[in-house]
């Protein structure tokens, strides 16, 4: 019985910690206040709202907008690491599979940085060590010279096997995009595999991830379509495993030449009617507004599932989604204020 409970995960402990952290997240009225502030005032405000340690740690190294951006990412990384450290058993397996996206983000940053000849410190500035690969291991990756060495080392660290055809495609074309696309697909595949659908909460989590794959695919399809790319080229980026967008439906959406031509088919998706349709303007297509609408959908989905099973992985994922949104919102406000955008415009870009 005890062995089973360890394997199952320490939900009571982790969920309570997560709920306590969630109570400190910024609210709509906080963003309303922040919109009216300058960047240093925003920095001070978020310092009092839980970002104090990271702001103080990085204050000697950065200032202004840079300080705020690094501190928010560092804070998110610290919070996610504390959740990962606190969780055990199947909960830890699911949380670490969910956070693998940050390992992949970091690997992409390192690969891009190396290929553009950036210095180690330059690359390090853009890393977000929120996944299971810690800062020391990331430093080791940065210290390696060639892309091949980095991929080999990452294969060992992240237990990833890069297929020979992906490596040969990369070597032939010299395009890192081939590896990046493979990593994105691999992340979702591994995440889906990490969730055992034998209990109701994990079934709900699985459905949430499958919906997440749908919105990622939809975002890619719409972005490429807005740039005039359609057909087979779009399908190269298709991530399998979605709930509503299977390969057949993705092909249908990809083949439409414009966003307006795909709108009819898109209306079959849950996300379309309530979220995308109100911001969709075919004459003057705004991808940012659509991305914000999709983010809002993701957040609402997380919110919906959070209260269904209190002692499960669902509140943990809900918090992580909200924390990511909070960091994104703070950066949007600060960047908006910094570049002199109007208050209403900034507010329109927030996901609340």
């Amino acid at each position, binding site marked *: 019985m005890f062995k089973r*409970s360890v394997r199952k995960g*320490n939900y*009571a*402990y*982790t*969920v*309570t*910690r997560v709920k*306590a*952290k969630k109570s400190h997240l910024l609210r709509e009225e906080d963003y309303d206040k922040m919109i009216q502030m300058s960047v240093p005032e925003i920095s001070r405000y978020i310092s009092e709202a839980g970002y104090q340690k990271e702001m103080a740690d990085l204050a000697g190294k950065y200032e202004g907008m840079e300080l705020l951006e690094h501190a928010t990412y560092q804070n998110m990384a610290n919070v996610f690491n504390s959740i990962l450290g*606190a969780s055990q058993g199947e909960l830890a397996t699911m949380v670490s599979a969910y956070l693998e996206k940050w390992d992949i983000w970091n690997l992409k940053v390192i690969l891009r940085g190396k290929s553009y000849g950036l210095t180690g410190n330059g690359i390090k500035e853009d890393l977000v060590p929120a996944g299971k690969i810690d800062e020391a291991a990331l430093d080791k990756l940065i210290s390696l010279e060639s892309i091949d060495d980095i991929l080999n080392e990452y294969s060992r660290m992240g237990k990833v096997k890069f297929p020979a055809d992906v490596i040969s495609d990369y070597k032939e074309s010299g395009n890192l995009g081939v590896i990046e696309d493979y990593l994105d697909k691999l992340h979702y595949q591994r995440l889906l595999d990490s969730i055992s659908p034998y209990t109701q909460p994990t079934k709900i989590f699985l459905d949430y991830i499958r919906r997440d794959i749908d919105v990622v695919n939809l975002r890619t399809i719409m972005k490429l379509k807005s740039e005039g790319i359609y057909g087979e080229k779009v399908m190269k980026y298709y991530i399998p495993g979605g709930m509503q967008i299977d390969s057949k439906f993705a092909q249908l959406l990809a083949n439409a030449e414009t966003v307006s031509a795909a709108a009819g088919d898109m209306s079959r998706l849950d996300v379309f009617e309530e979220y995308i349709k109100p911001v969709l303007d075919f004459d003057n297509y705004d991808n940012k507004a659509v991305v914000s609408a999709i983010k809002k959908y993701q957040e609402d989905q997380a919110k919906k599932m959070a209260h269904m099973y209190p*002692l499960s992985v669902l509140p943990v994922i809900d918090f992580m989604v909200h924390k990511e949104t909070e960091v994104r919102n703070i950066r949007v406000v600060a960047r908006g204020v910094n570049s002199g955008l109007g208050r209403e415009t900034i507010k329109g870009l927030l996901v609340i």
Partner: protein
Amino acid sequence: MAAAEAAGLIAVGAGLAVGLTGLGAGIAEGNVGAAAVGAITEDASLFGKAMIFMVLPETIVIFGLVISILAIFVM
């Protein structure tokens, strides 16, 4: 003989009352304790409240104990 059998059954009942309520309290305290430690980790000022929640499941054992005392001494 019948009286001895009845006394034996009463003793078994009293034992079950304490034993099973103890198990129930243990299971409940497992979750409550883990949550209490989680809450205290995030905010140490919650220690007092967490302690109160921690001892609440103990009442189940007290009910069991009362029943077993009644069984042994009153019946």
